[in-house]
């Protein structure tokens, strides 16, 4: 492999760095990086890895661009609303740098499809927006022996780490499960706000770590968690030890450890979907159903109905026995994602008929507005 004159020109400023040089640029060109999630974190990660000349990039995302993405997902524009993020991203990125190869996967990453996808990559970027996919990435990377660079955000704060990485001495660093063994707390719905610049900051940290790992320079964040608070400009690096007992359990596919990660939201068997319009009709006819608001934390009142309650998703398991009495249960949250997991949980516990409100309160409100108009 070599660099063409055009490439030498394009990557001139990298080549001028003694830490990178032509050898480092060739390593970037040979690198195969899978970016899982092309949202807030995925956009800056992709922009900088493609600009940097990472030769082979895979993009996994099953989502389409929506208007509320544009405040932070800087690869997309108003005219791409409704299109698959992976496709739009590929087109934009190739226009920026046609020297790289980009492969798209318009699907949801899961433990099931992971082996097939991961085999073509050496480094994984965890840019997802939910804990389930994060555990799926963690567990599949441990099994496939691949390092992954984790980034996540909450309001004004972010976390970055390099997990499951083998250093030059052959010693492997911590995994995400060594930090958080179980997905104990439910991932919140998208009702939590986030400052648009934040994924830009955290994503570029991830991209920087990727370039360090690929070129072998500096000290990457292996066995360390970078914790950033942008509101108060504080940064801390927290040490994490690799927990071999947890790694072994993942390798042996111990069900008690992997059940959470194995559940992919929405597509679970047995859960039925209901639209806002359908639910509205049922409520108007005083249908025999029990309506449960599964949103976490403080929030305004949900959908008003005579037979309804609010149980945060993280508490739901404790109420299963009571709910067992109900013929038909409808769960909802802000966006329909937490409730999809809630529905799966209830079905797994043996409830006979569970419906998830598609699009959650976001769609419910839209539907309501339509009626007024």
């Amino acid at each position: 492999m070599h660099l063409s004159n055009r490439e030498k020109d394009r990557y001139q400023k990298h080549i001028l760095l003694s830490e990178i040089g032509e050898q480092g640029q060739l390593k970037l060109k040979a690198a195969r990086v899978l970016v899982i999630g092309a949202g807030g974190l995925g956009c800056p990660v992709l922009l900088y890895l493609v600009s940097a000349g990472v030769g082979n990039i895979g993009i996994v995302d099953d989502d389409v661009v929506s208007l509320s993405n544009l405040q932070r997902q800087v690869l997309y524009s108003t005219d791409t609303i409704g299109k698959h993020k992976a496709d739009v991203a590929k087109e934009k990125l190739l226009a920026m740098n046609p020297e790289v190869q980009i492969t798209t996967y318009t699907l949801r990453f899961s433990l099931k499809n992971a082996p097939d996808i991961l085999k073509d990559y050496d480094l994984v970027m965890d840019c997802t927006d939910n804990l389930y996919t994060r555990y799926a990435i963690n567990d599949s990377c441990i099994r496939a022996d691949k390092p992954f660079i984790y980034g996540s955000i909450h309001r004004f704060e972010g976390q970055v780490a390099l997990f499951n990485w083998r250093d030059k001495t052959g010693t492997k660093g911590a995994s995400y499960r060594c930090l958080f063994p179980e997905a104990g707390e439910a991932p919140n719905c998208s009702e939590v706000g986030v400052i648009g610049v934040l994924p830009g900051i955290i994503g570029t940290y991830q991209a920087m770590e990727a370039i360090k790992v690929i070129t072998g320079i500096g000290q990457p964040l292996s066995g360390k968690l970078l914790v950033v608070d942008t509101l108060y400009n504080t940064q801390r690096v927290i040490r994490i030890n690799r927990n071999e007992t947890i790694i072994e359990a993942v390798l042996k596919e111990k069900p008690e450890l992997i059940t959470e990660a194995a559940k992919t939201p929405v597509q679970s068997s047995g859960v039925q979907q209901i639209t806002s319009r359908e639910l509205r009709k049922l409520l108007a006819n005083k249908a025999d159903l029990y309506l449960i608001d599964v949103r976490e934390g403080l929030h305004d009142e949900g959908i008003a109905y005579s037979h309804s309650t609010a149980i945060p998703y993280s508490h739901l398991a404790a109420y299963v026995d009571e709910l067992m009495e109900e013929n038909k249960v409808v769960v909802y949250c802000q966006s329909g994602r937490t409730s999809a997991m809630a529905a799966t949980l209830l079905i797994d516990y043996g409830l006979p008929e569970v419906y998830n409100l598609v699009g959650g309160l976001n769609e419910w409100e839209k539907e309501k507005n339509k009626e007024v108009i």
Partner: protein
Amino acid sequence: MKINILLFGVLTEVTGETQLQVDAENIHDLNDLHTWLVKKHPGLQDKTFQYAVNQAISSAGHPLQAGDEVALLPPFSGG
């Protein structure tokens, strides 16, 4: 002398605080601190988080002394 406690993410919303201090006299390890924290802020009981003592993830029995910095780190899911 005090133990300094830092809160992150959703834990700041649960407690309404980003920092806390506790007298080290009656707090000998993370178990003691946890008991004290949950009593002061019962909302922490249901939350998932890890303790980091002086910037290293530490388990329940980890000893504490005056001047230690204890961070409560919850998982973030956003991306």
